[in-house]
């Protein structure tokens, strides 16, 4: 076992699960955020149909990340969840309402408007709280010994509200460019017109957070302006992606805006990881501090390595089956 750094393998697995979750649940949450602003009820049908076959598969990554943390990095699980107590509840409530709305909106007629609200409200609540979690991660957590020792609302500060709004805009952008790819006609036109505004909002938040972060987390400045220069490739990649999104949306491209939005998210994610690496509970604990016993990490690793390929194949298959445009009047409303 000395030949492998099991903690590092697990860090890669969980980091992978998180980015998979952000990219995949991100666009279907984004569709929910945009729901109240859709041009009409037909457009809402198309929007929901475009994500209906795949959304719950997307959420498997969240649950996998959650229990994976308990098994591989219990300290992260037992510090972050108490620290984010109220936020976790709000996020779960949002995800539950949204999930149930997905199931029942298609079956409903007279109560459909209720499910519309549940879907939009749940998506907005879940997205915002996830963004707040990202902000709280940059802020760090007050611990004493091995337990969280801060207050119930330490996660809710002006800084985290900004990151919350940032992720809200980011998910909305993912959802918007997803719709550009999956829709046509007036719905696609609406999405094309909306995308630059959302991107503008995302960039504004990026700039604010980048300026603000060093005062929230002094170590971040040293990290970015220290010896390791190649790391700047990630922010540059994000900036490049942003320009490409503007350009391809302007040219009314179908697929590229979504791909570049995903690239922008991935580049931002790696920048964020670098800002705190190798601390998994900033500012005190690294991933090795937080690790469970090697025999426990190994015991689960065997099962995870077995099941992940199946999940990936199944996911790819689901996307393949439901490829192409979603049209008004199609799908499973009658």
């Amino acid at each position, binding site marked *: 076992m000395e030949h492998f750094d099991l903690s590092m393998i697990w860090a890669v697995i969980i980091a992978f699960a998180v980015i998979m979750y952000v990219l995949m649940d991100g666009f279907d949450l984004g569709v929910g955020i945009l729901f109240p602003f859709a041009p009409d009820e037909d457009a809402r049908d198309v929007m929901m*149909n475009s994500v209906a076959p*795949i959304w*719950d598969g997307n*959420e*498997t990554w969240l*649950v*996998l990340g959650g*229990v994976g943390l*308990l*098994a*591989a990095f*219990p*300290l992260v*699980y*037992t510090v*972050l*969840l*108490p*620290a984010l*107590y*109220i936020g*976790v*509840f709000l996020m*779960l*409530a949002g*995800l*539950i*309402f949204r999930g*149930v709305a997905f*199931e*029942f909106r*298609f*079956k*409903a*007629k*007279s*109560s459909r408007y209720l499910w519309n609200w549940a879907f939009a409200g749940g998506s907005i609540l879940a997205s915002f709280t996830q963004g707040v979690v990202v902000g709280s991660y940059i802020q760090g957590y007050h611990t004493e010994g*091995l*337990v*969280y*020792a*801060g*207050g*119930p609302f330490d996660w809710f500060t002006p800084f985290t509200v900004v990151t919350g709004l940032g992720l809200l805009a980011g998910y909305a952008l993912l959802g918007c460019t997803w719709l550009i790819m999956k829709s046509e006609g007036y719905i696609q036109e609406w999405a094309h017109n909306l995308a630059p505004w959302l991107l503008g909002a995302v960039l504004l938040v990026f700039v604010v957070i980048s300026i603000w972060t060093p005062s929230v987390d002094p170590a971040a400045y040293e990290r970015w302006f220290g010896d390791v220069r190649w790391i700047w490739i990630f922010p540059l990649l994000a900036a490049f992606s942003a320009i490409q999104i503007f350009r391809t949306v302007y040219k009314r491209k179908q697929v590229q805006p979504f791909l570049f939005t995903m690239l922008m998210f991935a580049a931002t994610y790696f920048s964020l990881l670098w800002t705190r690496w190798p601390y998994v509970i900033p500012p005190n604990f690294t991933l090795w501090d937080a690790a*469970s*016993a090697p*025999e*426990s990490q190994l*015991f*689960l690793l065997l*099962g*995870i390595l077995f*099941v992940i390929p*199946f*999940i990936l194949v*199944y996911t790819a298959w*689901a996307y393949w*089956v439901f490829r192409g445009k979603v049209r008004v009047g199609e*799908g*499973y409303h009658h």
Partner: protein
Amino acid sequence: MELDPLLLSRFQFAFVVSFHAIFPVFTIGLASFIAFLQALSFKTSNPQWEQLSIFWTQVFAVVFAMGVVSGIVMAFQFGTNWSNFSYAAANFIGPTLSYEVVTAFFLEAGFLGVLLFGRSRVPPGVHLFAACMVAVGTLISAFWILATNSWLHTPAGTELRDGVFFVTSWREAIFNPSFPYRFTHMAIASFLTGAFVVAGVSAWYLLKDRNVEANRKALSMCLWMILFLAPTQAVVGDLHGLNTFKHQPMKVAAMEGNWDTDVGVPLLLFALPDRELQANRFEIGIPRLGSMLLTHTWDGEVPGLREIDVEDQPPVWIVFFAFRIMVAMGLLMIGFALTGLWLRRGGRYWRTPWFLHGLRFMSITPFIAVLAGWVVTEVGRAPWLVYEILRHEDGVTPSLTGGMALFTLIGYVLVYLAIFSAGLYYLFGVLQNGIHVQDERLSDHADQAERPKRPLSATHVRFEHEET
């Protein structure tokens, strides 16, 4: 009033886990029933088996979806409210709970889709295989959950170093002393739940004269199943009780309402256990039968609750009454099983209105019995979270305040009530829609190209019930 985060967290966990448990208890039994129907349909050419299978698969889809939604919260409860416990026990419960999730995903990725949507697209043999794998998968999920829970009652295969459990033997930890009994007891409970719900719904259809042939067959199957399982459950429950008597004698003392260590103790039918008095009021019991059941001799010695300090005793009256409720439900089930056998003479079991009405009401009894049983075993473990090692107050999240806990407790109650009402309302729609005799394959074919492969899409029923 001072809000106690510990008490509120216990309420919250009990609420969330009880609420969640309702669904898997039913789906585990139902999955096996569907697999059995598929096998019959595969073996014989009688179309009624397939009609029944199609109908019950729809019900399965709705209940499974509600189980998944309510289960997501469970994955976070351990961290939010029981962080000290989670940190101490993570080396064991982390992998076991993860394996449960991994099993569930694997099942969903591999076989659930085929079961729900593949009826007309894969060969019947493959479809039968998928149905069997879903049934096996639900049991494997139960395996991991019950292994984790049993370890809390009879911790084994681990050692405590600096306040953290380390696994020394996975085999001993997973197959800990109470696990085989708890798993068998729970698996039979699930099958009984499935059988009673199917029997109750079939009885309802028979009373309304709907699809008489198919529902008579389903009812007959369920009654045979209940006739075999209900008495078996009594025997298994007794063995489980003896196992508990060996490893957690004080839980059994609370179940029996036995305060003083004595020989030839009675079996109490009713009493009002009083913690202040450290004794019972209004005892009604059968002399010496308690000793006989537990030690298999009329004057065997049975330890009483006064052996331990008051603060180490479980809340006796909860355990005492929950146990009696469970046993009463079990006896009621055995009663119905025997009545069903008696009514077989002359084929009256499906034409006797009072019996069918009775069965309708019996569909709720397995749920009551299961929840009461869990109250017995979990409250009976108190004040220990990990038996005789970690107390509840040492497992709770230190930073948690009463206000926070109250907020989420009320929140989860509201959220669950909302989705539960919607789900139940929809489920009744599915039941009202009923079994359809015409070949569903044709209508199934028309819209399946665009239909999302998710549980609820397996039904065609509208959310709002319509007058027909």
